[in-house]
């Protein structure tokens, strides 16, 4: 992938360090960042996103060994500490409402998911959205879906027994169930091409705001740290459990707007697939992990709450922009439209 333009002191320092090995002086850079703002900070979230991308593929102009450069890792960890603290603040109330209560863990995770009232982008797009807005939604989702389920595969070696088998079964489905042409990341790339968008990983990064990047960053933060395994699973469960119904509406929106069939096909696949995946994640993966101890249960509920609340914030930003007749994407550097 290609490094996007820097958008502040954090990305400027990080990108210089990645390309030229310029020493990273992160301590003074981070003083301005605290609290809630971290969750939507365009500069910090882009810096984190690029730090995580190093683990997945080559970045143009960056030596591959920078993936394990100690300065880069220390920088990432400093950003993560602030991000994680903000996520704990964000999720505390919801975790408190649902963790360590009477009743089955799976039931409580579904109830928690249904209790978080986010703005419904799919309802808006289903009834009123136009082609530009649906394309913008695909652009936002590309921050994750071009590598759909890749972060979650990192949880597999950390599990054992029935939970491992259930996650493997789910991932097999995400990774095409034996048919390369059915890889969900490939289906998503085809939907992007059909909608006239650049399907390269990170290709639209310069247009994506911090609120959007925070969703993928939370996944990678949780999935890369073994200590956050329960949170990573709760996050994945909540993600899957908010997909089936919205996908049904988004498939209908794509048809109403006459987009090429590949767009609806991507969402169609997720109606049936995620009706299965949400059950597997909450009941066959999260529940046994939560049963392993009180901290694990708290972690599972924290991950689920963080996922839903970040999605709600990102979704609200899109709806607010659309309601005021604006683009939900950051302005293009060269004033170009979102491909064509």
């Amino acid at each position, binding site marked *: 992938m290609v490094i996007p333009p820097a958008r502040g002191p954090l990305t400027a320092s990080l990108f210089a360090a990645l390309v030229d090995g310029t020493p990273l002086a992160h301590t003074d850079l981070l003083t301005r960042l605290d609290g809630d703002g971290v969750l939507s900070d365009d500069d910090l979230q882009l810096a984190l996103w690029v730090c995580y991308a190093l683990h997945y593929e080559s970045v143009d102009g960056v030596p591959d060994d920078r993936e394990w450069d100690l300065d880069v890792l220390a920088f990432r960890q400093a950003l993560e500490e602030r991000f994680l603290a903000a996520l704990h603040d964000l999720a505390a109330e919801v975790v408190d409402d649902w963790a360590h209560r009477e009743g089955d863990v799976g039931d409580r995770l579904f109830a928690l998911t249904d209790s978080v009232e986010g703005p419904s982008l799919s309802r808006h797009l289903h009834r009123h959205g136009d082609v530009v807005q649906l394309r913008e939604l695909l652009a936002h989702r590309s921050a994750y879906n071009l590598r759909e389920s890749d972060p979650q595969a990192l949880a597999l070696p950390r599990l054992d027994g029935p939970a491992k088998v259930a996650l493997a079964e789910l991932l097999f489905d995400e990774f095409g169930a034996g048919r390369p042409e059915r890889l969900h990341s490939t289906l998503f790339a085809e939907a992007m091409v059909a909608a006239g968008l650049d399907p390269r990983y990170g290709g639209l990064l310069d247009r994506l705001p911090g609120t959007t990047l925070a969703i993928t960053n939370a996944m990678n933060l949780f999935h890369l740290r073994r200590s956050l395994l329960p949170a990573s699973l709760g996050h994945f469960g909540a993600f899957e459990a908010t997909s089936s119904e919205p996908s*049904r509406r988004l498939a209908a929106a794509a048809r109403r707007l006459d987009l090429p069939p590949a767009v609806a096909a991507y969402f169609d696949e997720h109606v049936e697939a995620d*009706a299965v995946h*949400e059950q597997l994640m909450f009941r066959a993966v999260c529940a046994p992990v939560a049963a392993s101890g009180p901290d694990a249960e708290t972690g599972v509920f924290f991950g689920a709450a963080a996922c839903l609340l970040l999605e709600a914030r990102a979704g609200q930003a899109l709806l607010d922009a659309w309601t005021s007749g604006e683009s939900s994407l950051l302005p293009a550097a060269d004033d170009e439209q979102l491909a064509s």
Partner: protein
Amino acid sequence: MTARVSATPCPGGPLLLRGVEEVETADGTVHSVDRPVVALCRCERSQRLPWCDGTHRALARGARRTAGDVAPA
């Protein structure tokens, strides 16, 4: 080799079927299966019968709202 089929009911939700190649519904239609696990709708309100599409949760949400019961269990 005999294929093993298993059925796992999800409380308040679908029936998960593993190891099936097709599902025949009452009207004689045969639905082929191309994923390792499928969720069979049990609320009968899915828009993609015989498959679950998550509608049971929308129904339960509606019922909870009517009952005024929004507090966590």
